[in-house]
């Protein structure tokens, strides 16, 4: 592997910091849920926090901040299809031409 032991030591500090932030964000998201915000705001806040946490895990624990191009390309492709998959079935379900009863 290209990485040297010295470098890894530095990484370890980062891992600990990330860990602390993750714990903190967990507490925040639980605390926010007790505020009983309106559904829309609640969802937005919760998803925002989850996304930050996911970015931290992906970026540092999974080393995505310094990964190879090939992996970025694969993940970007996946994310595009993921979004398609999230958006289209729902928009069809909300298509005004139909009524649910």
């Amino acid at each position: 592997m290209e990485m040297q032991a010295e470098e890894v030591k530095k990484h370890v500090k980062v891992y600990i910091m990330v860990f602390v932030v993750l714990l903190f964000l967990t507490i925040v998201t639980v605390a926010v849920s007790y505020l009983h915000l309106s559904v829309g705001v609640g969802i937005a806040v919760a998803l925002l926090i989850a996304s930050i946490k996911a970015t931290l895990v992906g970026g540092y624990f999974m080393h995505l901040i310094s990964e190879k191009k090939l992996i970025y390309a694969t993940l970007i492709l996946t994310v595009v299809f993921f979004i398609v998959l999230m958006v289209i079935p729902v928009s069809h379900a909300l298509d005004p031409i139909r009524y649910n009863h």
Partner: protein
Amino acid sequence: MKDWLYLPIDGSAHGAQIDNMIVVIHWLMLALFAGWGLYFIYVLVRFRKSNNPVADSVGVRSHFSKYVEIAVAVFEAILLIGFSIPIWSTIVSAFPAEKDAVVIRVVAEQFAWNFHYPGADGVFGPTAIHLVSSDNPLGLDRDDPSAKDDIATINQLNLPIGKPILFYLTSKDVIHSFSLPLYRVKQDAIPGQKIPIWFTPVKSTRAIQEELTEEMSIADGKLSPRLSLMISMRDYPAKDGSAIIKKGDSFSEEMMPLLLQAGITSVTVAPATPTEVACAQLCGLGHFRMRGFVTVQTSEEFNAWLAEQASFLTQ
């Protein structure tokens, strides 16, 4: 082209738009196929090994193919923007107002079509699951005032000619597909959803029957499955003048020898029920026989039919 394509008779106001599109697309397909097909045959002959022992590694140098591809793309764009999108937005996603239309609920089930007319008051009575029974497949609450005059039929759909018909389509169990091939209507019936569709019939069932009238040979003296779906379009008397079959009647096994004895070897017939509801979506073992009948008639006939149905209710 339309005749070559075996498209069935079209009895609806909007159907011609669908048919035209099918025809236009098939012209495009034919042109592409014929053009490339001729090229293909030419190439296969000209560049066979014995005729052209050494290949030219570059091959085609012209940009002709690029223009063909662009032409195809342009043609598709025209079909999309010029035809498909605007037609869809008028015949599928825009609807006549309920007050201007004949409104009918269609409830599909394994394996029958229930039609629900609101009756004189124009209001559909409420339905409930626990009321569903074999006598009341819709689960109509007959105690409710608005349901008192509602008419429910099974597999028989009567429609007045020339008026927009607005259907609300749903299903009790699985997905079916409500298809009127001769009126170019098709729409899935999905449980839990109420999907509106509409069309205007412009040809009556009788007129279609006239159009489909044909001569059919009965020389083999058998009642073929096909003939059993037909009605006679003429009276056929025996030699003694007594009627074997009258106009509008269907054929039976017994008639066949009689007809032959009378020297009749071919008969003028038309489909008994040319306008049908077909179920187009696989819905179980009875999918193939989930067939309903459409009768498109004049407004007078339609009103008379409604009145007749209403009179059954009061009994």
